[in-house]
């Protein structure tokens, strides 16, 4: 009977030094840093929409049919839209919803996807079969009818009052949950593939033989090593989810106008593409820039977490 010794957890100072090395690697990645600054500034600007509206005295939702399609001016920096509303303020308010939906839904999607994928990959056998066939079923479902069914769920039937069920927070959470329920499959497949590849490698088997529990192996050996493809998949899904929200709005389950989102602003602008193309360009550009920036940040995080990368070598 041999005695099993599990390695001691690293000391606090060592852990700090790992994080500072990662931070060093990240901040030397210029593209990632510029993107991070861009995302932070954009998020702050969006958060300031309320105070800006208050001080400028412009109501972002008040329509004025006599001021439609006004060009940029001192009062309306990006002009007005088809109902005479300030475009800049609506972009900032829209950003609040779009960024929040994008990030929160991606986070929930990742939790579900990683949990299913890693469990299936690590346990394997019939359990893997069961979970993956369930995943296939979700992938095989026609998206639009599923969205219609999920959107038609009456929240009052699960005990919420009419008022609560129709509150902006409930609508927001409903969208996040609907997206998370149908969009986790990509991450689950990536997580499973990575886990299957790793569970048989020598150091994982050695840890298992040494008495390490499954949870320890997953958290310490597997997850950090499959983080790269997962982070890439998550950053890509942020942009996709921002657009997904606009599809839901089109079907009538999204954020209800006049509350703007970049998605519904872009959808509405399609109709005006001949007469007012800039109304499509602004939200489109913001979605594009945000997705690109989040991707670069994700790439930077991946490089920073890569133990093989030397400090400063990952600068692009």
């Amino acid at each position, binding site marked *: 009977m041999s005695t099993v010794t599990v390695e001691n957890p690293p000391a606090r100072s060592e852990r700090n030094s790992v994080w500072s090395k990662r931070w060093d690697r990240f901040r030397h990645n210029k593209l990632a840093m510029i993107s991070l600054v861009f995302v932070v500034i954009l998020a702050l600007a969006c958060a300031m929409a309320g105070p800006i509206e208050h001080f400028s005295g412009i109501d972002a*939702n*008040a*329509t004025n*049919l*006599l001021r*439609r399609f006004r060009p940029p001016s001192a009062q309306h920096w990006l002009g007005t839209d*088809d*109902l005479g509303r300030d475009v800049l303020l609506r972009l900032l308010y829209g950003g609040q919803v779009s960024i929040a939906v994008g990030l929160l839904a991606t986070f929930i999607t990742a939790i579900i996807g990683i949990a299913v994928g890693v469990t299936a990959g690590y346990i394997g056998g019939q359990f893997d079969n069961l979970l993956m066939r369930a995943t296939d079923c979700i992938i095989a479902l026609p998206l639009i009818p599923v969205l*219609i069914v999920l*959107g*038609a769920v009456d929240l009052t039937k699960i005990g919420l009052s009419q008022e609560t069920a*129709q509150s902006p927070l409930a609508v927001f959470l409903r969208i996040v949950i609907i997206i998370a329920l149908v969009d986790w499959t990509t991450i689950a497949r990536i997580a499973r593939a990575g886990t299957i590849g790793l569970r048989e490698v020598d150091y994982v088997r050695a840890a298992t033989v040494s008495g390490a529990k499954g949870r320890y192996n997953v958290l310490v050996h597997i997850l950090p090593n499959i983080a790269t493809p997962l982070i890439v998949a998550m950053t890509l899904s942020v942009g996709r989810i921002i657009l997904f929200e606009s599809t839901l*709005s*089109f*079907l*009538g*389950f999204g954020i*209800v*106008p*006049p509350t703007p989102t970049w998605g519904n602003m872009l959808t*509405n602008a*399609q*109709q*005006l*593409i*001949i*007469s007012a193309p800039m109304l499509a360009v602004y939200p489109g550009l913001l979605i594009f820039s945000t997705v690109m920036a989040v991707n670069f940040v994700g790439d930077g995080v991946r490089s920073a977490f890569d133990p093989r990368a030397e400090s400063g070598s990952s600068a692009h």
Partner: protein
Amino acid sequence: MMSMKSSIAKFARLALAGAAIATAGASVAVAQANKSQLVIGQLQFLTNFHPLIQVNNTKRLVVNYSLRPITAFDEKIVNQCILCDKLPTIENGLAKIVDLPDGKKGMKVTIALKKDLAWGDGKPITSKDIEFTWKMARDPKVGFSNYNSWDRASELKIIDDRTVELTLPQILSSYNSWDQIIPEHLEGPVYAANPTLDTYIKQSLYNTQPTNPGLWNGSYLLSDYQIGTRIVFTPNAKWVGEKPKLQRIILSYRDNSSALLQNLLAGSVDAVPVSPGGISFSQMLDLRAQQPTKFKYYIDYGTNVERIAVNFDNPILKDKSVRQALLYAIDRQAISDELFGGLQPVANGILSDENSYYNKNMMLYKYDAEKAKDLLAKAGWKPGPGGICVNDKGERLSLELVSTAGNQTREQIAQVLQSQMKEVCIEIKNNFVPLQEFNGDMARKRKFKALMMSSIDFSPSVSPAIALSSDAVPKADNNFVGNNFSAYSNPAMDKAISELEIALDPKTAKEKWAEVQKIFAEDLPMLPLYFYPRAYVAVPDLVNFRQGTLDPLQIWSEEWERK
């Protein structure tokens, strides 16, 4: 070496010349082929092809290519015989006012079908088909839609193979307007085996075999379709009228109006209707400004009115002052001028001011925010927190407005209304629901809580009873037939409509229409917004396109030609 280079150059020149000739030849062939067909871009694929059940504006624009009504109003607002031989009138003796056994006055109307009319499978169209359609219409378990429905006749007598005599239990001014008929030889057995609406609509051949030629009797047959994608119509060899000029009419479906517009610009569709079922009116105006000569723009006066149904079960809306305040608070002229270039005229009621029966002496609701506030104050609504009115009990003046999701024009209007209502202290909560839910639960089952925006067509042959009479409230008892979604009920209105329906001479009809409009303007059972003009955009080489017809223009589609 030089000789090889020159050979390659020669070969390249020959190849290019060949390609050019082939391309030119193909283009000519395509151009020639295109002249014999018309591709029409559409939105909203039908849920079923049955011509008399669950009929809405979009369905009427499709089924009339291949199934013709007995009569229809043309662009001169003249009622025409389409399947009948001679239009029944009092003057020609084919319609008579008679005394009925119960002592009331009624009518007997004789309809004789044209000679040699046949269904697409060659079987003759006979009186039996009219009788079968009439029987089905009278069956309360089935429930036909109520556009000129056959159920207005209480008795039917077959005179001969082509002639029937219908008895109307009252005098009706629309006695000579009659809908489509359906084939007894095909639908008879299906109806016998499935006597309820739910089973019949599923088993009807219009649902299970819509390309069966025997179902259709128009100048075109529905010869092919792919759900959600396209419907193809080809000439009906058995049609006895003018032979169709176009060899194919293809309805090509797109997901949204922006895609329709881009396809029109790219040339992959030749024509598009302007709402319903096509691009929006504002898109058409934009297109016309950008491409004034590339397409022909047909715009004519229309009878389709955009209105907001007000739910009379809602205690706030029961109060007439609140309904009137709502209408005063909407700047409909600004909406029409700014969003629709002034081409969608403001609706003061259910009849347009271009209609000869329009009543000039009724109550009008010109935009007046102050008057709206006064009316609300009189009704007990005082400004409260957040600029929204409250009553003595502290209840907020908050109303939900339901509309169709994905209809950008309606979403736009809903936002303008929300903003304008807020100025007079009314909170509007927009609820955009999918079309299926809108037509089903919200409208037919009246699940909307306060306000619902939709359109309704009051063409000359349609009685205002379909939306204003107290027995047109959709409910389980009547299989949810009727368009009185507001559940408005006023004995004075019912009486005025009954008198209008029996008014045969124009002078009396005008007086009765004036009465109906006056009560409407006073009661506001719905909030009229504006009239949709009949509009279409098509390639300029399309000729004989009768756009201004008051019944669907497809009824005359055999005349369409590309030159």
